[in-house]
C-alpha cells in the first residue's frame, strides 16, 4: 500500500522532464552487420544516472580527465548498448557516444570484442572540414586492437597523449585539429563508459 501511495505521490509531484538524446545507430540491422559481421544483436539502454548516479559520473570524469560539460553532456544521457551474439553466445558490443565537435555533433561508435579491444571504429555523423579524412578507412584502421589501457594517459583537455603510447601514435588527418582531439576524447569516453557499464561488472 505504501509503495502504491509512493508511486502515486511521485506521479503527482514529479516535474515534467524530457530525456536527453542518446546515440543510436541510424540503421542498426545494416550497421551492426557491417561492424560485427555474422552476428545478431540485442539492444539495451543504460545511463550514468540509473547505473550509479553522481558517484559514477564523478568516477567517469576522473578517469576521463575532463568534466562533462555543456547542455547535452549530462548524467541522464541514455546510452544504447548493442550486445552482439554469435552462435547464441555474446561475442562483443557496439556502443556509441555523442561528442561536441568544432562545427557540430560527432557520433563515435566502437565495436568491441569481449575483452574490450576495438574491432571497428565508425564515425556515424560528423560536420568538419576534415570529415572525409576522419571518416576514412585508413583513419579508422588506426584504432583497431586498441583498448582503454592505451588511452588511459590521453589528456582530453590538452589533447596530448604520453609519448610512446599507442594513443600518441594515432596520426591526425591534415586540418582535423580540434575535431581530431574531439574524436579521441569520444573514444576514451566510450571505452570508459563501456568499462563501467560492462567490463568492470563482469570482472566483479
Amino acid at each position, binding site marked *: 500500500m505504501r509503495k502504491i501511495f509512493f508511486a*502515486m505521490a511521485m506521479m*503527482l509531484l514529479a516535474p515534467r522532464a524530457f530525456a*536527453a538524446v542518446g546515440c543510436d545507430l*541510424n540503421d542498426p540491422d545494416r550497421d551492426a552487420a557491417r561492424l560485427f559481421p555474422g552476428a545478431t544483436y540485442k539492444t539495451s539502454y543504460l545511463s550514468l544516472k540509473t547505473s550509479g548516479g553522481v558517484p559514477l559520473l564523478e568516477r567517469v570524469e576522473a578517469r576521463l580527465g575532463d568534466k562533462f560539460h555543456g547542455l547535452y553532456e549530462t548524467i541522464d544521457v541514455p546510452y544504447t548498448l548493442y550486445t552482439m551474439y554469435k552462435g547464441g553466445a555474446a561475442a562483443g558490443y557496439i556502443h556509441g557516444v555523442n561528442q561536441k565537435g568544432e*562545427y*557540430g*555533433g560527432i557520433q563515435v561508435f566502437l565495436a568491441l570484442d569481449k575483452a574490450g579491444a576495438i574491432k571497428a571504429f565508425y564515425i556515424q555523423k560528423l*560536420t*568538419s*572540414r576534415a570529415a572525409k579524412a576522419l571518416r576514412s578507412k585508413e583513419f579508422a584502421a588506426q584504432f583497431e586492437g586498441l583498448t582503454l589501457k592505451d588511452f588511459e594517459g590521453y589528456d582530453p583537455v590538452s589533447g596530448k597523449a604520453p609519448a610512446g603510447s599507442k594513443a600518441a601514435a594515432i596520426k591526425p588527418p591534415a586540418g582535423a585539429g580540434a575535431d581530431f582531439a574531439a574524436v579521441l576524447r569520444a573514444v576514451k569516453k566510450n571505452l570508459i563508459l563501456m568499462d563501467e557499464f560492462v567490463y568492470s561488472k563482469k570482472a566483479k
Partner: protein
Amino acid sequence: MNVYAIAYKNLLRKKTRTALTAGGIALSAWVLATLLGFNRGYQQGLNRDIDNMGFQVLLTAKGCPYEAATLMLKGGTGLRYMPEAVVKTVYKNPEVDRVTPMLMHGVFDPDKGENGAVAAYLGVDAGSFPEMKPYLEFKQGGWFSDNNAYMAVLGYEAAELEQREVGDKMLIPGVDKEITVAGVLKRSGSQDDGTIFLPIGTVQNIFNRKGLLTGLGIKVKKGADISALENRLYDLPDVQVVSMSAVKATIMNLVNSARVIVLGIAGIALIIAMAGVVNTVLMSVMERYAEIGIIKSMGAMPADIFRMIWTETAVLCGLGGAFGIGLAFVTARLADAAVRYFLPYAPNGALVALDWRICASAFVLIVVGGLASGVYPAWRAARVRPLEAIRIEGEQ
C-alpha cells in the same frame, strides 16, 4: 426549538452513514469536476496547439513540399519557388493581418550516416517570424535581428543532435559557409524542435535563391472570413493553399462529439449522487418516523420539518461536494497522466484544467442536485401525522 441544531445533531448521531453518504457525494463531485476540467483543458490545449502553428494559411509554390519531413523523404529535391512579390499581393487582401516569408533549402550532407543524408535549413524573416510564433521560448540566446546575418537559431532537438550552444559555429555542407548559433529554442513539441532557422536573406544568398520563397505564412485578422481569403488565394497562379483552419475545424468537430460523451458521463455522475442522496435521506426519515411525529406534536410546523431534513441534505452535499472538488485538485496531475496514457493524441499543457469557475459550477451542480433530491424525503417528513407516527411507534 431550533431545527438546524436538530439536523446537525442527527447527522452526528449516525456518523458512519453520514460519512458514507458524504463520501458518495464526494466521489460524484470528484468525477464531475475532473470531467469538466478535462473538457476545458483538452479544448484549451487543442486550441493552443493549433494556434501555435502561428499562421492559419500557408501559401507554397504548386507542388512544393511544405514540411521539412517531406523534403527529407524526397532527398532534398522537389523544392519549387514563388517570387517574393507574392507578399505584396497577399497583403492587399483585407483579411490578412500579417505574413511571414520562408525559404526552405535542403543540402546533401555526405557525412551523415553511412550513405549521407539531407540537412534542411529554413530561412525566416527576422521581423515577422518570431511575432508569428510567440510561444517559442529560448533555452539560450535569442532570435537574429538581421536578415542577412550568418547566424542560426536551432530547435532543441537540432541543437542536441549538433551539440550546439550559443556562440558555437556550424558549417553548412557543400557551400563551406560558417554560421554562428544565436539561439537555442526550448522544446515545443512541434516540428520546430528539429529545425535549423537561418535569416531568409542569408539562405537566399548562400544557396543562390535571391527573390525566391518556398512558403508564405499568413495570419488572418480575428473574425475575418478565412474561406473568402482562401478562395481568392486559389486564383493566384502557380501557388497552392494549405489551410490550417480546415484542419482546426475538422479536429474541433471531432472534439465536440467527444465533449457530448464527456458531459453525458458527468451527468450520470450527478444522477448517481442524487439517487444516493434520495435513498439515504429517505431511509433516515423512515427511521425517525416517530421522532418526527413527536417534534410535530411539540409544535413544529410542516415547514420546520421540511427545513430540517433539507438542511441535513444541504450539509451532506456541501461537505461531500467540497471534499470531492478538493480531491479533484489533488489528483488532477494523476488524472492528467492517466488520460495521456490512454488517449492516442493529447495536446500539450494541462489536460485537466481546473479553475474557480469549474469548481464553483461543480459545487453548485452537486448542491442544487442534492437539494432537489432532498425535496421528496423532506416532503414525506413534513407530511408525517403526529398521532399516527406515535401510534405506529407504540405498536412496534
